[in-house]
């Protein structure tokens, strides 16, 4: 057995820590997002509930906890309840191989990024189940959009990550961080800028955030796949959305921005600083750009990101071959 008892205990402790991280992350990000939205639109945002509105997100979650759970008629209720849980649980697994710090890695596996990319597909399945089970035309349309969008944006994402994997010669996330230096010009960002750009665009598309939030486009599909969800079902979808955002930002920080290595004092704080800077970037573009149309969304992906990522991969392979 590769997993000894110590490893088992470490993984259990890590899962508990990750649940805490997900909840704290959602509370902080809901507040930060609403506050940022306010500042971008020249208004204060949440202000009166608690000092500077800091209790606002907690009030919201408590209210959602006390809201009536509603099951519409003709609903496949097993899938209806399974979908939010399925959106929430795989994210726990996805955080395990992320190296937050030199000693803060729950599961040191050689194929860490493979594990993440394989289990990230569960998020799409939960969206399909939510849209299908709720017996609602808007829900089903949102689910169909979620599928085509996630499938499309996964491909350039993997291609962009492959460039870095070629460069490092490993799929182990810890090794990828260790091959990068401390200063920004020693990061993978400096040698793979195109891959970084492609990854950032696909990361926004993959997490269904604006301007690519077509699965829950308010103006066309009432609320997309979670139209029929009230109370905690909706809260779980929200929680997993923010957790997914943190996950893709952590992967980006690991692959392109040097992970836990920084100009001074290596440690897990660098991962969190870089990941949250990227999260604030996602929030910033959400409140700046209007939503794209669905054909535009797929055109960006199939006509631009995919050829560019193949080109990037090809150039990387050729240079590596000649350098060797």
């Amino acid at each position: 057995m590769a997993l000894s008892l110590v490893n088992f205990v470490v993984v259990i402790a890590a899962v508990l820590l990750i649940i805490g991280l997900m909840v704290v992350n959602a509370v902080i990000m809901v507040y930060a997002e609403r506050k940022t939205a306010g500042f971008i639109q020249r208004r204060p945002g949440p202000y009166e509930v608690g000092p500077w509105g800091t209790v606002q997100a907690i009030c919201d979650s408590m209210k959602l906890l006390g809201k009536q759970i509603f099951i519409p008629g003709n609903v496949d209720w097993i899938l209806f309840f399974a979908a939010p849980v399925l959106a929430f649980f795989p994210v726990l697994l996805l955080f395990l191989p992320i190296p937050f710090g030199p000693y803060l890695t729950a599961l040191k596996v050689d194929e860490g990024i493979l594990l993440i990319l394989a289990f990230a597909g569960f998020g799409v399945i939960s969206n399909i189940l939510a849209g299908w089970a709720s017996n609602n035309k808007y829900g089903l349309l949102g689910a169909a959009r979620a599928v085509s969008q996630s499938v499309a944006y996964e491909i350039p994402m993997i291609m962009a990550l492959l460039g870095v994997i070629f460069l490092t010669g490993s799929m182990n996330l810890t090794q990828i961080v260790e091959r990068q230096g401390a200063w920004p010009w020693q990061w993978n960002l400096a040698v793979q800028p195109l891959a970084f750009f492609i990854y950032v665009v696909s990361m926004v598309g993959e997490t269904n955030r604006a301007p690519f939030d077509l699965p829950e486009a308010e103006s066309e599909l009432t609320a997309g796949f979670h139209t029929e969800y009230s109370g905690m079902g909706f809260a779980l979808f929200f929680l997993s959305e923010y957790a997914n955002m943190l996950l893709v930002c952590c992967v980006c920080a690991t692959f392109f921005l040097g992970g836990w290595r920084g100009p001074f004092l290596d440690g897990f704080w660098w991962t969190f600083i870089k990941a949250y800077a990227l999260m604030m970037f996602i929030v910033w573009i959400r409140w700046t750009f209007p939503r794209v149309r669905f054909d535009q969304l797929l055109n960006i992906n199939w006509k631009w990101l995919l050829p560019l990522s193949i080109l990037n991969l090809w150039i990387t392979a050729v240079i590596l071959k000649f350098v060797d």
Partner: protein
Amino acid sequence: MDAPDRILNSSFPLARSEVKPPLINIKPVNLFFDLNRAMSLWPVTFGLACCAIEMMSVSMARFDIARFGAEVFRPSIRQADLMMVTGTVSKKMAPALVRLYEQMPAPKYVMACGNCAISGGPFKFEGQYGIIEGVDNLVPVDIYVPGCPPRPEAILEGVFSIQEKITGRRWWPQPQEIPSEPPPAVAKK
């Protein structure tokens, strides 16, 4: 026939308001949840007429309903707590409004914004046939906000009143009373 009778006799489905007693009735827990409900009233995106412009304006800069945690306009009624009936309710709209109200999960609150939603407003006259004279003929209303259309401050005040109705106390300071100007002096001959 006066307005409620006419509506009752027509084929509109009417919303029933039945409040069942809670299963677990512990006072501190109730107070805690009521406080949280009052501090995050998510309105539904539901604009009917010109008062909806004021509803938009109250969520923008200068008035900013976000300060009180009520700016999350949910497009789906399942996630909303507060239905602001902003504007004239025509008889075409009435069944949709009743259906939306019944689809909203409890606890739910309704604010009648503007004179049309309160009583029919300027559209109420003898022989009119298209307008519901007051949304309280259709659904139970918690707070009436008068005005034609009401100022954004008045809508904010309506939100405060709903918070007061939920928790039993007013949370924000009363606005300063603006002294009314004396009528202009008429020159005597």
